[in-house]
């Protein structure tokens, strides 16, 4: 009998373990709005929550009364700071429940999981999806709407999300991006208050101290760059090197040659709009000229041999070993480089470099964007009508005056207060915190999310040198904002385009190999394995683009873009 019990217990354990594994490992946090979270900030948020409760925004008063319970999944962006166990410890997430009066059942990708795949596992089970999903759903929005996976918010938006509605109406570009071709609103988007300033968050950087030491001027044209590289090589043995992944791959210095891309091809990069026509950056002669120049630098030994496999981590050894003097990176990484250099006692001084132009001043485009994010927040059909209405009001909060402050800075008097200039300033609670990006413990808008990101937040978050770098990269023509917009955003494949289900299917099927093909050709042309200046090899490359269905891809994208423009 004893043995029997033991054995059946083992069998049961096996079965239980199996079912636990089979179910997905959602890290679920259940929180009641009044429940004690145990976090130190709980009491403080309570105090100010009461103060805020009197505030009225639009036609909705927060905190809501009689709100339904809502579940909310966030893929990335406003997720709990890594120092917290889960959302119940996160001041921002518990605070949002207080501020809005909505009980929120949070879920996020498990730490260490690939966020995209994690979202896929949730999508694969539409019946048990959280009520609100924050992720990347624009391309397939039509299918989700037609399959009744997500709510068509059109009839409800104006009434239950008046502040968001007002925000959309404030700019026709915003409105256009947040609906489908047939005018159905389905999403809450991410917007930058600055309208694109921070979308130019990466660009060329240079060792200022070396420039001064060599008595050189800040390089402006491609010839200047070449000259600086030669001097740096001679004097310091340093070459050009940059993290390819996520940084150099998108734009590089292509704009100086009139080209519109470096080697990255995906949903947004690689394609551009010129005179209403969708075109492919790598099929143009401008791109060929650009690569021919890069190849020349490579042959002269001015580019690091490890260049093609460099990323944000590996580049650091080059940066700190003085083996590169000219690079390309983001403002966040620039912060990190300088911080680490200071910690090591190095004397290097990296600064943002003005966008490089052609010798005749040519500049077709720079790394930038329209200030609208591709991350979207949708309400799924697991929410019944009443829950959906609560969700609308909950999401609306971020776009109200009061919610804007909360999403960007947290609770007034706790994580921020008004400074002498009348602008919000983080308190010592944040500024003395030595964790990485401590403000993300209290706010939600640092990276993305369904909110409007305050420019002031970015000023507070970044170091002076990084902000100046961003200014340098963005204000190409500071006196002529129209011209500036043309190079920073207007050429770009617009955010918010929706494909039909058939189009999305076909594109997914025929365009899988194109990024690999271009990547490979880029490497071959750069290193000289294939000769970019040889017409036959160039023709072989452009013919190859056709084998990879380029014409058909452009045709579909053109049709889609035309519909978008007609919205």
């Amino acid at each position: 009998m004893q043995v029997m019990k033991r054995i059946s217990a083992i069998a049961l354990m096996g079965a239980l373990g199996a079912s636990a594994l089979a179910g997905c490992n959602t890290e679920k946090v259940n929180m009641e709005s009044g429940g004690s979270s145990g976090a130190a900030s709980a009491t403080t948020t309570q105090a100010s929550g009461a103060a805020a409760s009197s505030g009225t925004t639009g036609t909705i008063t927060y905190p809501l009364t009689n709100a339904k319970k809502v579940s909310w999944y966030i893929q990335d962006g406003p997720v709990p700071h890594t120092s917290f166990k889960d959302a119940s410890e996160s001041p921002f997430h518990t605070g949002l429940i207080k501020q809005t009066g909505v009980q929120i059942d949070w879920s996020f990708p498990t730490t260490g999981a690939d966020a995209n795949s994690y979202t896929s596992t949730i999508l694969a089970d539409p019946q048990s999806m959280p009520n609100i999903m924050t992720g990347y759903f624009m391309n397939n929005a039509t299918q989700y709407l037609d399959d009744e996976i997500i709510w068509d918010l059109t009839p409800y938006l104006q009434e239950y999300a008046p502040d968001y509605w007002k925000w959309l109406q404030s700019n026709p570009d915003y409105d256009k991006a947040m609906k489908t071709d047939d005018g159905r609103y389905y999403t809450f988007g991410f917007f930058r208050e600055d309208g694109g300033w921070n979308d130019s968050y990466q660009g060329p950087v240079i060792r200022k101290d070396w420039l001064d030491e060599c008595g050189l001027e800040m390089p402006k044209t491609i010839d200047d760059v070449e000259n600086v590289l030669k001097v740096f090589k001679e004097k310091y043995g340093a070459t050009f090197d940059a993290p390819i992944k996520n940084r150099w791959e998108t734009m590089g210095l292509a704009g100086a040659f009139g080209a519109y891309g470096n080697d990255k091809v995906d949903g947004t990069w690689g394609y551009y709009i010129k005179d209403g026509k969708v075109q492919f950056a790598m099929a143009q002669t401008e791109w060929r000229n650009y690569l021919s120049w890069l190849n020349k630098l490579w042959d002269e030994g001015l580019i690091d041999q490890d260049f093609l496999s460099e990323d944000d981590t590996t580049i650091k050894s080059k940066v700190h070993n003085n083996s590169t003097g000219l690079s390309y990176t983001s403002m966040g990484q620039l912060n990190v480089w300088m911080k680490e250099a200071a910690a090591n006692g190095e004397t290097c001084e990296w600064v943002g470099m003005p966008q490089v132009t052609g010798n005749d001043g040519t500049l077709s485009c720079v790394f930038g964007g329209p200030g609208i994010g591709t991350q979207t927040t949708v309400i799924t059909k697991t929410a019944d009508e009443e829950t959906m209405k609560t969700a609308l009001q909950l999401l609306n909060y971020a776009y109200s005056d009061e919610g804007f402050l909360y999403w960007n800075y947290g609770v007034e008097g706790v994580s921020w207060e008004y400074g002498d200039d009348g602008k919000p300033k983080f308190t010592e609670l944040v500024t003395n915190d030595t964790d990485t990006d401590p403000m993300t413990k209290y706010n939600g808008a640092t990276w993305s999310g369904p909110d409007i990101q305050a420019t002031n937040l970015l000023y507070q978050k970044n170091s002076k040198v990084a902000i100046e770098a961003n200014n340098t990269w963005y204000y190409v023509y500071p006196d002529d904002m129209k011209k500036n917009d043309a190079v920073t955003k207007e050429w770009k494949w617009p955010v918010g385009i929706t494909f039909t289900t058939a189009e999305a299917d076909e594109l997914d099927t025929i365009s899988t190999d194109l990024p690999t093909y271009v990547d490979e050709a880029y490497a071959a042309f750069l290193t000289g394995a294939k000769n970019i200046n040889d017409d036959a090899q160039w023709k072989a490359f452009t013919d190859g683009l056709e084998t990879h269905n380029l014409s058909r891809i452009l045709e579909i994208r053109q049709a889609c873009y035309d519909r978008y423009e007609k919205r």
Partner: protein
Amino acid sequence: MKKSTKSKAQPADRKSLSYRLAKDWSMNKWKYIMILPVVIYLILFCYKPMYGLVIAFKNYKLTRGIDGSPWVSPWYYWFQNFFEDPYFWRLIKNTFVLSGLTILFGFPAPIILALLLNEIKSNKFKRVVQTITYMPYFISMVVMCSIIKIFCQQNGLFSTIVEAFGGTGQNYLMNGAYFPLIYVLSDIWQGIGWNSIIYLAALTSIDQQLYEAAKVDGANRWQLMTHVTLPGLMPTIVVMFILRMGNIVNIGYEKILLLYNPSIYNVSDVISTYIYRLSFPTSGMPLYSKATAIGLFNSLINVVFLLFTNWLSKKTTESSLF
């Protein structure tokens, strides 16, 4: 008592299966219960997921589910799509070249190591060698690939060595000619100790009398190895080889993904990395159906190789899996 039931059961055996099952159950109850967790495991994780293979013949959409997604027409749509892919032949070639080289050099390596270890008299030294050769196996793939990458850099270990001998260093991972070498050597380095364990275990089971008899007959050490040790190891080697051939198309994508870069795609891109790119695309939705179809195609090739090797070994060595 027992004897009488047995004799009575004899004619009943032919009559009813359920009776036989019931009898077997009463006799081997505990064995059945012991195997139950394994059976549950196999059903849940090996047989039930097989149902998912139908998406290789459907246009699978996450939100529509396996049953809700429409069938493709013709049914071989995704297979055809893969065969017509511009990269198809390159993927096949690279997969077989890398896998073939790994088997050619990587398979005998642990056997040789085991034979050499077997010849060592000093137990202490033997253990030290064994520990050192195991160690790389426990290094995580990510860390190992980072080490390889750093060694291969322009100013890395290999370049430094080459330069010391008067050559010019380079980034060896940028040169397609070196990739198979780097791949196979690092594979051997990482797996040689671990994979030799099974052969060492088999060595202990060889009858010591055989050695003594051979010695009496005047065999030297080399003859002992070729005439006693190797034949004794042969059944293990054959089984391991058949199993290895059944994995011929399965090249771990992790290592290649971590090591490759665009300049060596032409020699390093294999079927598994291609499936990875389909499943985690840089844009758009993953092509689950196509990835599943290729996976199925992969398994079919593996099965063919397994059966072929098994048949061949049955013919030649008379030892086989089944």
